[in-house]
């Protein structure tokens, strides 16, 4: 799976983050479908979602630690991730890349598994927290 360079998003959409989020959501959705097809996954349940998120994270060389807990998928990342490297490499704000690129992609991936997924970021390292935590609730 090929991805555009993270820094290109900032260059292109610095003044239009909303458009960036929309595009990244679509990229995420395509990536999610791609992973599901390759792994031959057909479900729309939390277990499938965790598998898809982990497979995607492995592809982008990030910590793959999504787990199902109490019927929801929780994904925590504390490793040095590609977004933080890209942000520093190109002198771009890490939080901007997270909010407008990384998180919408993750949201898109979840939506490929089940469009009725609510995605929340409950803590973010770019804001100074010690871990990035994504919570996915499949509502239907």
């Amino acid at each position, binding site marked *: 799976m090929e991805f555009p360079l993270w820094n290109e998003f900032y260059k292109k959409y610095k003044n239009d983050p909303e458009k960036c989020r929309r595009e990244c959501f679509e990229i995420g959705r395509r990536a999610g479908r791609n992973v599901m097809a390759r792994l031959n996954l057909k479900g729309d349940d939390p277990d499938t979602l965790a598998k898809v998120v982990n497979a995607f994270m492995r592809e982008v*060389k990030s910590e793959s630690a999504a787990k199902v807990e109490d019927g929801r998928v929780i994904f925590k990342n504390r490793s040095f991730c590609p977004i933080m*490297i890209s*942000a520093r490499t190109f002198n771009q*704000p*890490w939080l901007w890349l997270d909010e407008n690129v990384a998180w919408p992609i993750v949201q898109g991936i979840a939506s490929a598994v089940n469009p009725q997924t609510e995605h929340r970021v409950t803590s973010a390292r770019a804001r100074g927290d010690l871990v990035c935590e994504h919570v996915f609730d499949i509502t239907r």
Partner: protein
Amino acid sequence: MESRESGSVLGSPSLTNIRIYELEDREVLDRALESIRRDYAANLLEEDRNIFKINLKDAICNIELTVRKDCTAISTSIRHPCGEHASKEWQKDLERYRNQLQTILSPLPKNPISSFSVLIGKTSSEREALKLVRTYSDYVGSREVAAGIAGNCLLATFGKAAEEIDPGYVRRELLLSPMKMPLSEMEKTVSQFLNDIKHLAINQGKLDRLQRLCQPYFPQIDPGETEIQEKIENIMGRITQTEPVDLETLKSWLSEVMERFSTVSTLSALIKRDQATAANYIEENKNLLSQWSERSIEGYPTNTIRETIEYSDTLRPFQNFIERTEALRIQLERVSDFVRTYLGIRQQEQSSETLGQQVKMLHAIEKHEKLLKDLTWIVALLTVTLVLLELARTLHILP
């Protein structure tokens, strides 16, 4: 110390605002300046594309643009049309200047990397200049944090007001008071100081922006380190167990360790680059400040000393991050060597096992071949015997 009082006369008061913008904001900046030109077209006196004057009824405003390769500085000064004007109610003048500046500069983008505001007013002695510092401190609502004498001028810096919210860039409130100077000398001295302050603002702004970009990275060393240590512990724990690890697991470990090694090396190099850049900004400002040969006054720390103290802690988090990522990098390098060696041994072991099995198979085949040969001989002998017996029976030799 002097008591805080107001009401004295101030010579040639003026207010200067220096804002620094990053280069990437250049287009927005050009549009904003064009809008200022349009709004004041009737009163505009343009010297060139980068310097223009606006004639207001009771004041004159100079706007100067300095374009550098990576940033743009906009210096705006406002003063009475008569240079020698002595103001009896300078606080009122200042209030008016502030409002006028605010209106003129309102089209400018709200995201500079630094904004320095300098009140300039001529005084006749150090005592009078100090009195001005204290009065101005009351006026801006923040205490003077540094003051010193440089080139027959008193320069004071004011701290943040208690209720000030971080605007997302460096803000400084300064006061520059030339003492006992004729107007022409004062203008030259003030211009030199403002030029220096502009350079300080550029470096301070860039340093602040770099610190803001790097700041979220510094606390990440703790969880990042823990994650890597857990991974290493898990790998080393499994390798040292008696049960051999299969080749596929070893290969995936090696790939994980190498990925982390590459990430940690890159991050370490990036923060090292940032540290060098920050050190460069600091060095430039220190050199500039040292040229002032500032001396202290009335027990205040000089502006040079205050800046130097502020800089002393700036590089520490960079250094700490670099040292810890370097230590991790070395550790990951050793673990990757270890896994690679173990993988090599396991591959060799597996090839010797395979070789052993192949030899055994060859022996078995040889054994079977020999058996087959013997069997063929027996069958051949039996056939010959049977043929001979049949022949003898046909020739009636045998019954």
